Structures are given as structure tokens and as C-alpha cells.
């Protein structure tokens, strides 16, 4: 299952790092962050709980950029 979320982040490099952090989160098969459109596309592993996974994705991203936001 793929879903796209609006994100808020200020620097392009942070966006790249967020993509990596999201991809390494459990329950995420792949992640793609588009800095210009401020969108994050997440492909969930089968059976993953979307809310739960997104919470840990946000946590992982906050470690990189404390100010970032993900709408989910």
C-alpha cells in the first residue's frame, strides 16, 4: 500500500535525510521525499498499521530535523 503525506521541512538536505530515515523505519518498504512539493510517499509493508508506522517515521525524522512535520 502506498500513501502520500504532506510534510514540512526547511532544508533540502534534511529532506534527503528524512527520506533515508523513513525508509529505514520498520513497516516501511520504501520512502520517497519530494522537497520541492513537500510530499512524502511511503510504501507500507503488508499488514503494517499505518498510524503506528507513521508515528515512528515522524519520530525518526524528528531526530534529524526537530522542526519537521508530517501530516497523517
Amino acid at each position, binding site marked *: 500500500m502506498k500513501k502520500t503525506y504532506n510534510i514540512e521541512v*526547511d*532544508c*533540502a*538536505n*534534511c529532506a*534527503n535525510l528524512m527520506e533515508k530515515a523513513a525508509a529505514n523505519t520498520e513497516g516501511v518498504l520504501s520512502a*520517497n521525499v*519530494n*522537497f*520541492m*512539493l*513537500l*510530499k512524502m*510517499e511511503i510504501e507500507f509493508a503488508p499488514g503494517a498499521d499505518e498510524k503506528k508506522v507513521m508515528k515512528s517515521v515522524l519520530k525518526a525524522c524528528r*531526530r*534529524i*530535523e*526537530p*522542526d519537521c512535520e508530517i501530516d497523517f
Partner: protein
Amino acid sequence: MNKKQKKLLCRILITFALTVLLLFLPISGIYRFVCYFGVYLVIGFDILRKAGKGILNGRVFDENFLMSAATLGAFALAIYTKSGDYLEAVAVMLFYCTGELFQSLAVGKSRKSIAALMDIRPDRATLKTENGAVTVSPQEVRVGDIILIDPGEKIPLDGVVLKGASSVNTSALTGESLPRDVGEGDEVISGCVNMTGALEVRVTKPYEESTVCKILELVSSASSKKSRFEAFISRFARIYTPIVCGCAAALAVIPPAVNMLAGGEAGFDIWLYRALTFLVVSCPCALVISVPLSFFAGLGCASKNGILIKGSNYLEALSKTEYMVFDKTGTLTKGEFSVVSAVPLGVSEDELLRFAACAECASSHPIAVSLKKAYGKNINRDAVCNIRELAGRGVTARVDGVNVSVGNSKLMAESGAEIPLDIREGNAVHVALDGSYAGYLLVSDTVKENSSKAMGLLKKAGIKKTVMLTGDNYNEAQRVSQAVGTDEFQSGLLPHQKVEAVEKYLLQKSKRSVLAFVGDGINDAPVLSRADVGVAMGAIGSDAAIEAADVVLMDDDPIQLVSAVKISGKCVGIVHGNIIFSLAVKFTCLALTAFGLSNMWFAIFADVGVMILAVLNALRAFRIKK
């Protein structure tokens, strides 16, 4: 400017004012430090806070940390050497934040221009019901409903005109400023603007499948497919910062140690200063921001011109196109037949056309339509009788008391007319009057006005070879190929043979270049996906083409191809320029610093300056001329 940006601007201005004030105040000793550090905190507390959080989270090499380390280090050094030069640290932070603000404004601005581009989404539809007109949202309208569109309104859904005539402005979709005339029975496309007359339209597609929706979906998901450059830059950024930091550490430790071992003075402060200067240059921001920004701007510029590209990778690929393979029908030609020449024998040209058109008056075959169109006048049906359509041969009829046969050579033989030996045209339509040969008409697919011009311009834009593929016979293929000016052509191909032909060219082209296939998206989906870049032309309303192609030209004018190639070339040129320029400045700066030829002022100017120039250069991609 949003709230965050305004806040930052305020802090920058306050810091700047305070710094200038401090320059003129004769304070010394500890008070001097306290004053400068206070000003420093105004601009830098945010970055210090983030750096602190980063350390807690185990992330050492982010730019906040680097900037904090460099500036705090500069403060420490100024105290240690008793120079009292705290200005440097404040200035570095100030310029760094100015750079960040500028970057954020530039990105915001380009986001906005893309958003304006996407302003084709219709927000309401006027539904015709038994109780009069009702305004609803386009999502609520169902297939088969009738909607009313007043002049000046956006067409909310795809449909067919039932009543009324108008011209519609398609420029938001196609970039073509010439309005298109529509009348009863014509299709209209959502996203266009109705200009002159009121229209009553029967909806043919639900909102989710309408053209405007498809386009918006395409535009907003574009640029999530990343180009090689973007992948390179994010890999580069990941290693660049740690390496520069490592170098900085080495610079702070090794030379003083060597000096000490050699028995001289260590010179800790000099080398520490150089190391701190290294940290200022270690931020990869200019590169990281400028590449995706250029592509984003390039994609935006393309969509503005009616060229939808599904990702930066395809924009990049398009710029490397060496072979361009075209489908014939609908791409280079209009896909409509017309009479190209009439060769009468013993009758006038007008007579020949009249007899042929009258005999074909009841037929709806494309060739018959083209004959009637060429004749151009009204046909008096009463004068025509005994019409017989003979499958695979033609038509016979009695027109004004004359027995007319219109068809191929077989029919001529049957009606006893002898075709003169010197006539060998393959796709001629022969005409016999009362059994004697009266001449022939050449019917052919019309070449688009701009096809040949586009070929010339493509060559100029760097395409090495153009090839035309068609299922038509050799003669016809040769004629079109010559008229258009393609380098090669292949005729008589079935759809799967077109794939094979493309595969053959894929092997022929040089390894790093790209083969693009251009088709109209009808029956050539397999070829579109087999080529490196599949371009679908005139794809308004054709879902299959939008699915299969990588690049979608909204208009069916081949000149748009030239625009697409040019935009991609310029955009990639800008990206190249930015990468080379930023790297060159950064490495020069690092080298100068290592040898003590620069200072922190120079470093921060280089860092922020490069970023600003790179961003300005990237924004140029928005304004590429067609």
C-alpha cells in the same frame, strides 16, 4: 513570506543593527564579549538549539552543528588569543542565516509558481436539472448529466457539446494560445476556458477520470522520480560533510603536532582557526538545493508549455536523445486523408472530382470523405442513382446519366477501362466514365504543417537521427518520409514489428545516449514503454497514452517536441553548471583555507554566495524560452 521567514528576517535585521552599533561602541574586556555574545544569541540561538538536539540524537554532522562549532570555536579563539575579535563569529552566523532565508524564499516562490500552474482545477459545475440550474462541485456530477457552461467559465468536466457554439481557450493545458472552435457534437475537455458562447454539455467521464484530474495527478507526482544528478548529490552530501569535518580535525591536530615534533612553535591558534574555517565551508546546501530546484523549475517550465514530463529522470534522459523514432499516423501526419493531386484524362479536373464525389456520396469511408471534402460543393443526391459499393474494389454509380466507376485497378478492369501504362501510382483512386478511363486522384494522409520544420529544428537541437515507422506501404511511407525529412523510414510494420524495429535501433545507438519514441498513444503503448523515453503526442483525452508514456505533449503539434528537447537540454545545462561551479568554489575555498590564504569572512561569503548564485541560476530554468 510566511511567519517563519518573517521572524528570521526580523532577527537578521536586529542582529545587523546591533552589530553595527557595537562596532562604534568603545567597550572592552568582558563587557565586549558579553555584548557580542548577546547579539550572537539573537541570531544563533535557534541553530544552537538544533545543534544541541542533534547531538542528543546522535547526529553530529549536520549543518547546525557545524555552524555552531565554527562560531563558538571562533569565540573561544578570540578569548584565548585576547584579540577581542568577536565580530567574525557573529558575521558568520548572520550571513549563514541570510543565506537560509534567501533559499527559503526562492524555494517558496518556485513552489508558488507551480501552484499557479496547477490552478486549472475547476471548483464548480452548473448542473441542468428539471428545477433549473444548480451549482454543484464537479465531483458530484455523474456521467450522462448535462451541465451548462457560461462564457468565461472553466469547463469542469469532459463531455460532448449538445447545444451552442463557442471557442475554448486550451492554453492552460496545451500552452497553445490560439482558441479552438467547438460546436454541436464536438468534444470539450475539462480545464479549458469557455470564451465566447454558452454551451450545454453532456458529461462523458466522471471527475476522477477527467482530463484535468489526470493532468493534475501527473504534474503533482512528477519529480518524485529522481534524476541521476539528484541521486548523485544526495550521495555526495552524505560523504562530503564528514570528510570535510575529518579534514578540519586533521588540520587542527596534525600540523601543530608536526611543528612541535620539529621543535618549533606549535601554532595551535592558527591551525585551529583554519580548521574552524573548514567547518564553515562544509555545508553542502548550495548543491543539495540547486539541483532539485533546477529540475523542478524545468518541469514547471515544460508544463507551462503543455509538455508534461513524468519525472526529473525523463527530463534528464530527453536531453541526451540521439535517436528519435516516430510513428507516422497521427504523429507526423494528421491521420486524415485528403486528395493531394487530381490527374484528369479527357475531362476537366473539376468534372473528375465531381463525378468521383457524387459516386461516393453515400459512403463514409475515409477516402470517400476526403473526395467529398476535395470537391467542396454540395452534392445533388437526386442526380445519383444505382450506387453499389464493391468491397475491396470501389464504388459504381450512375451520375447524371453517366456510369461512373471509382476504385482501384481491379474495378477498372471490370468496367472495361484501360489504365494507361505510364500510371503506376500505388494508392491512386481511378475513375472511369461509361467504361473509359478518365484519370485518377491521389489520396493520402496529410502531413502536419509543422512536421518538416520540427525535423529541422530537432536536428539543430542535437538529435542525430530521425526515423519514421509505419504500417503503410512503401510508396506512401517514402512520400511522407521525404515530405517530412526523416533520415530513415520503415514501412509495412505490424505493431509488434515496431517494437522489434525500436529494439534494433536501441542496439545501434551509442551506449550513453537515449532513444525516444514519439507516438500518438493509440496502439503503440508497447513501443512507448520499450523506448528509453516514450513521448505521447496530442494526448488530451487519451488515458492509455498518459499511462504508457513518460512525456506527454498536450498538443499534437510536432514543434512541441522541439520545445521539450530544448527545455531539457537547457535545464540539464543549468544543473551541470551549478554542480561544477559550486564544487569548484568549495574546493578552491578549502585549498586556500588549508594554506592560510583565506579567513572565515571569505569562507562564509563563498558558502552563502555560491548558494545564492546557484539558486538564482536554478530559477532561470523557469524562464526557458521555447
